[in-house]
């Protein structure tokens, strides 16, 4: 199991970082959307490796099943012409590089030098019971508020995109 676990981790880590890089670097937006879905799936695999099955399932349902589809809709509904300038030779790239380096270097150094605290208890496999207890008992009120946020976002999105009543004659019934 250990050897397989490590091998899986290596594959998934490569998939995550490689997929993320592909989203940023790939020129065609359709391909970027596919790579994004791939990255999400790899992340779900990471969650499974950590023993968080329920979170992994939610990850796939929400990210692959809903968010990727929405983004592909966005790709379809907007024009995807060629960019008029290169990816790395724009006026904001130097500033971006400096800002990013200033934040990234300390964080990445910390992340790579991070050592597991010894003696930390490992949870039992499976997170179904613990997670649901946390959500529905400890965090019941935030959970309800989150549902209101979703409703507000849904209504807001519809209002933003809905055309004025002139050309809506054939639409709404």
């Amino acid at each position, binding site marked *: 199991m250990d050897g397989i676990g490590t091998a899986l981790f290596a594959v998934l880590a490569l998939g995550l970082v490689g997929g993320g890089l592909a989203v940023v670097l790939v020129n065609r937006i*359709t391909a970027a959307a*596919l790579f994004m879905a791939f990255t999400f799936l790899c992340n779900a695999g990471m969650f499974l490796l950590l023993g968080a*099955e*329920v979170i992994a*399932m939610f990850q796939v*349902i929400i990210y692959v*099943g809903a968010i*990727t589809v929405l983004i*592909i809709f966005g790709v379809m509904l907007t024009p995807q012409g060629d960019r008029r300038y290169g990816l790395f030779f724009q006026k904001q790239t130097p500033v971006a590089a400096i800002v990013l380096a200033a934040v990234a270097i300390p964080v990445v150094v910390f992340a790579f030098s991070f050592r597991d605290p010894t003696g930390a208890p490992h949870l039992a496999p499976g997170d179904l019971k613990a997670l649901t207890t946390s959500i529905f008992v400890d965090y019941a009120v935030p959970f309800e508020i989150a549902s209101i946020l979703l409703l507000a976002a849904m209504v807001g999105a519809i209002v933003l995109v809905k055309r004025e009543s002139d050309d809506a004659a054939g639409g709404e019934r």
Partner: protein
Amino acid sequence: MPVGPFGLDPLIWAPLRLALAVGLALFLVLNGALAQIYLERKLQAIMQDRLGPIHVGPQGLLQTLADAIKLLAKEDVRARLTDKWFFLAAPSIVFAPMLASYAVLPFAKDFVGVDLNVGVLYLATLGSMTVLGIVIAGWASNNKYSLVGGMRSAGQLISYEVPQLLSLITVVLVSGSLSMVQITESQHDFRINLFILPLAFVTYFIAALAETNRNPFDLPEAESELVAGFLTEYSGMRWGVFFLAEYGEVTVVSAILTTLWLGGWSGPWVDSLPILGVAYFTLKTYLIVLVFMWIRATLPRFRIDQLMSFCWKSLIPVTIANILVTAVLLLAFPTTRVPVAVANWLMLGAFVVAIPLLQRRRLAGVRARLRAEAERRAIAV
């Protein structure tokens, strides 16, 4: 050094087991599709007073095999203006989740790929991935019929996923588990969930019809309006993969219905002869598949606005009310399932009676408004 089964190194055993499982699932899918296509053609022929396939083999039994060989031998065509990677990826994106679903289906006692403790959630997850492939197929074909088909499909699948998941929740509430095996075992001695939760069965069934793009919800591939919807540009084995995925999906959905509501492998004498469970499971699954076919031969197709309003204004409120009633009754009467069953049957009756009435009233309203508008325009002209 750890040693796996058969004295193999686990590093070798794990991929081997994966290959075996995928092979077995593929075998099941292919055979199921062959059987289902033959069954479907024969059944529709009987219902429409035709003969159906009769020429190849006895009673036309080998017809689907011949068709499959024809598909395999066809030239692999890709139109020049299609989006290459999307076009190639779409069939696999639709097919792979369906194949993965077979891992948790409990065919009989101790005859299940893996007994996940989140099995129902796993199946829901895989079901939600199909929509991605269909949208991609519609977009990649670079064809307006395909695009409309893909768009319709995205709206339909995302909408009907909601009542589908909500119907599953009631079963989970009653059974107290997300594991397919434990849900089956909770329905021993003919106390199957169909008697307790008939409304959830009906709502799940309707949502499943929509999720698998079957009649009367086959708008994404409505041949009278959209040529073949998102399948228009596909031919040969790529088209075949989509087709296989559709039939496999029907089988998976029927197997879920069987496990969650019809008691899965349980049946008479199954305790003394566990292998009988496979027979019961297959029988029950194909019973539901037959109902799918029956509906296909009987019902006309929905219009897109009817489809959406039926989902959001009828199915989703009903399933939410069902969850509320079931949860409250289970908390109030933790020992007996009778109140839940009574409430559910009553709600099913109300649902069946109310939906046509409400739809008729809504349609009358729509017609009145359209008529008024037409008159206004006539006066204006």
